[in-house]
């Protein structure tokens, strides 16, 4: 009895020690098809180049800001590199939780010698933010669930048109994007949206417009929910990230159609947490330089339909790695898809987010 117990313990300790021997780097991302594309395009080639290094993924990006704050307070940063949306990167940078960097020093230049700061250009929205992809929040619907004879929706306002397109829809449980769409469909010109939204009446107007469909809306929190809801036939249309729709439509053969009208562009990228030890920082820098070079960003687009953040990567985007279809027409930035677009307005939402969030939540609870 005693012998078996101690052998067990010894082997368990050996197992722990064994897994602890290898060098590890923890990357934080969003899970799902997106993280899979990062694994294939960056992590696997990097691990091949660096035998002995293991990359561990933590799917904690949704709560990255809160967790980094707690880690910082406890003085115990366990993450090496964190994938966040640009708005979160700006917040983390302001709070000193993310490291500021010099693009031309940290990031590789384009193959033709263009320095990184020019290659990424306007997408460097914060001193801490290392852009990776351009994605969009956009709509999709199930043609087979629309009433017979209804014209195919060609505008985001189909979301608010309960007469032509009856049935439940799913929208993200936050004011961003929804408020803008509501105002546009209430007759506000695209250029005036944020001026109107800055006023008390404008916010109420957007909520009133959303109120016309409120009892038919299923609110989602995670981007994986809308494809699931649409596949189940629980809703007839909804919004999610374009890459999620792509993976449901092309890779899983779901009968969805994209509705690109009034899609909202946003950026996603890495931040390096402040306060890493020198040894860890050196390794992370090496990884970032590799993972954001022109070829790697173009490679990622083989696995998911998000646009690479570097101008020099765009011409290299080819075909899907498994399906062999051209990826360019599925990119949110493709001219056919980008006829009517928005760019996430960082300044506006930085100023108004708390206020409008509170109003939106109160409105939801009514």
């Amino acid at each position, binding site marked *: 009895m005693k012998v078996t*117990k101690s052998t067990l313990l010894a082997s368990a300790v050996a197992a722990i020690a064994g897994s602890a021997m290898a060098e590890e780097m923890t990357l934080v991302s969003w899970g799902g098809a997106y993280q899979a594309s990062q694994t294939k395009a960056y992590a696997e080639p990097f691990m091949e180049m660096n035998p002995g290094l293991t990359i561990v993924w933590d799917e904690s990006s949704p709560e990255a800001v809160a967790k980094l704050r707690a880690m910082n307070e406890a003085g*115990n940063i366990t993450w090496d590199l964190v994938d966040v949306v640009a708005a979160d990167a700006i917040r983390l940078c302001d709070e000193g939780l993310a490291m500021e960097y010099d693009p031309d020093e940290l990031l590789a230049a384009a193959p033709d010698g263009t320095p990184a700061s020019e290659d990424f250009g306007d997408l460097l929205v914060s001193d801490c933010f290392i852009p990776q992809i351009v994605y969009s929040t956009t709509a999709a619907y199930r043609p087979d669930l629309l009433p017979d004879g209804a014209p195919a929706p060609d505008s985001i306002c189909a979301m608010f048109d309960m007469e032509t397109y009856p049935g439940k829809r799913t929208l993200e449980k936050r004011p961003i994007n929804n408020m803008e769409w509501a105002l546009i469909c209430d007759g506000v010109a695209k250029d005036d949206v944020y001026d109107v939204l800055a006023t008390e009446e404008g916010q109420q107007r957007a909520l009133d417009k959303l109120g016309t469909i409120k009892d038919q809306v299923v609110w989602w929190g*995670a981007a994986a929910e809308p494809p699931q809801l649409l596949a189940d036939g629980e809703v007839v249309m909804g919004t999610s990230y374009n890459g999620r729709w792509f993976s449901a439509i092309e890779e899983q053969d779901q009968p969805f159609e994209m509705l690109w009208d009034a899609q909202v562009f946003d950026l996603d990228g890495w931040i390096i947490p402040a306060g890493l030890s020198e040894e860890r920082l050196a390794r992370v820098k090496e990884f970032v330089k590799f993972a954001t070079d022109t070829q790697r960003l173009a490679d990622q687009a083989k696995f998911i339909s998000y646009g690479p953040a570097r101008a020099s990567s765009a011409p290299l985007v080819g075909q899907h790695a498994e399906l062999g279809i051209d990826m360019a027409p599925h990119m949110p930035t493709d001219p056919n898809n980008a006829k009517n677009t928005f760019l996430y307005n960082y300044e506006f939402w930085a100023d108004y987010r708390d206020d409008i969030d509170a109003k939106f939540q109160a409105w939801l609870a009514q």
Partner: protein
Amino acid sequence: MFVGAGQGNVLLGILLGAVLMAGLAWVYIAVLDNERVARWITILGLTAAGYFFAGFTGLVIGLLVGWFFAFFIFWLYEGRYRQKLLPYLTGRQVFGHYLFRVVCGAIFVFLITPILVVLPLSFNAQDFFTFTPEMLRLDPEGYSLKHYEDFFTNNEWQRSFKNSLIIAPIATVISVSLGTLAAIGLSQSHVPGRRAIMGILISPMIVPLIISATGMFFFYSDIGRFLEGTLGMDKNFVGYVKVILAHAVLGIPFVIITVTATLVGFDQSLTRAAANMGAGPVRTFFKIQMPLILPGVISGGLFAFITSFDEVVVVLFVGSASQKTLPWQMFTGLREQISPTILAVATILVVISIALLTTVELLRRRSERLRGLSPA
């Protein structure tokens, strides 16, 4: 009834169904009066109706419903419901008896159906939590083992499975050793303030988990810094130590409670007799006390193991991604991915839990039989 429900009018469906069944009952009793024929008519009729309205699924449902109602009508009519009961019970008592059974049955259904729903879904050929039309037709195309394959080939799932298998047993061994000792100590009447100590020891079970987890996060961060910084231990090793200790703390209350319960029936004169014959306390414990309280220790250990194996909140706070356990992976997978791999894992876990509990129960019965202590 089901046709009504299918067309979005459950109440009307139930009413129609009841009228139909009452009509049928009257026809059988007044006209046919032959149970076997009536039973076959009902079964075949409802099966055909079910098949007509809803294909294969309808056929199965119709079959079951027909069988049930054919039985039910004659069961009610002939008063067969009194046969197995005591003859002097009043009508109300008979009704209460069956009501009790129906409620018990309903409880089992509500407890078990959610688990059963998961099993077929895990063989879904699609990447969604959906019963596809192919699955409902029992078409082999609609089923696949790909989610099981994903579990066994995907690095993230394998890592988390391995972590769970490392963390849970070690945490269990620690909680069982400490919990048993604590329970024995606390059952001695001369220990001062034992109620207070007991209260503190079982507090992890009472305090909301999220609060313990937040506290543990800061506490173990300091410990981790000390172990890594001052003692220079490996970061990953420290990570495991932190999670294992945190889980051991959560498991201890279960062991204390179950062992204390068995100790209530333990005759302290046995230990005095052992001491009288020259056995030291350690020897007495292993030879006399331990075998007698073993059932309590084992069930406490089982609870401790399951606590650690199922735990997601504390490990999310205390662990880092290298210590990702199975529940953690399921939790994030559910939120970010909604992949049926989670269902495949759930199915595997359900099977393992059933096997584990059955083994323990069989072992317990065997040892009780061997010692002639069988309760029944």
